[in-house]
């Protein structure tokens, strides 16, 4: 899976938790889940659980700490997929 495909799949995952549609439509790697997409911090855990299910990976606490934006999430998913 290349990065574009990965971002596209991540975008589908985060859609239900997003309240800022404009920021969502213009999503880039720099997009921040909380500051830009207005995602409730209690829903970040849903995104992490959805990522684990969709990509069949395990996100541990250390990875979770940094999962606040698209770029970092993509990096973490890529690393997990490469280690499989």
């Amino acid at each position, binding site marked *: 899976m290349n990065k574009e495909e990965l971002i596209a799949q991540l975008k589908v995952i985060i859609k239900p*938790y997003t309240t800022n549609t404009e920021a969502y439509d213009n999503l880039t790697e720099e997009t921040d889940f909380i500051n830009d997409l207005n995602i409730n911090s*209690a*829903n970040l*855990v849903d995104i992490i659980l959805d990522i684990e299910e969709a990509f069949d990976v395990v996100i541990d606490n250390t990875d979770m700490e940094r999962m606040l934006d698209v770029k970092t999430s993509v990096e973490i998913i890529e690393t997990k997929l490469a280690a499989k």
Partner: protein
Amino acid sequence: MIGNDVIDIIQSRKESNWQRKGYLQKIFTSQEQLLISNAPDPEIMVWLLWSMKEAAYKIYNRQTKIRAYIPQKLICSIISLNHDYSSGTVNCAENSYYTKTFIAPETLHTIAVQSLDSLNNVVEIENKNIIKDISGIPYLTSSLSNTFQDVSISHHGKFEKVVTIRPAF
């Protein structure tokens, strides 16, 4: 320093399914999970502990400027709990925070401070004359004294709370 977090219970039921597999394990320590499973009302315990973490994190973030999603590193202890009020502490690394939570049928509001004395001097204020720095941390401005005072703002669903510590005279 001060932090607060308000929760709209009705809104949380629309937004979050805390009974989802793996959910509690990701954000709560094993001790906190025990508090939830033993609670007469697990839903209130989930949001009580979560709002304690959120309120404490706002101080931690203000103090350290560190931004991270660290719910398991904000370790909650409940000191007292009845139907409409709870007090507790949250520890994060070497930092300790004291919390109090007002519990009503549709909402919880937790306030966190760094010293126990300050808990009695917390006041709710209107959302005006508040500015944010580049990190998004809010301050109350005073045109009279030309000072900036720590303030914390939280909104969720139909609730908004703005709190500050009343200065000692």
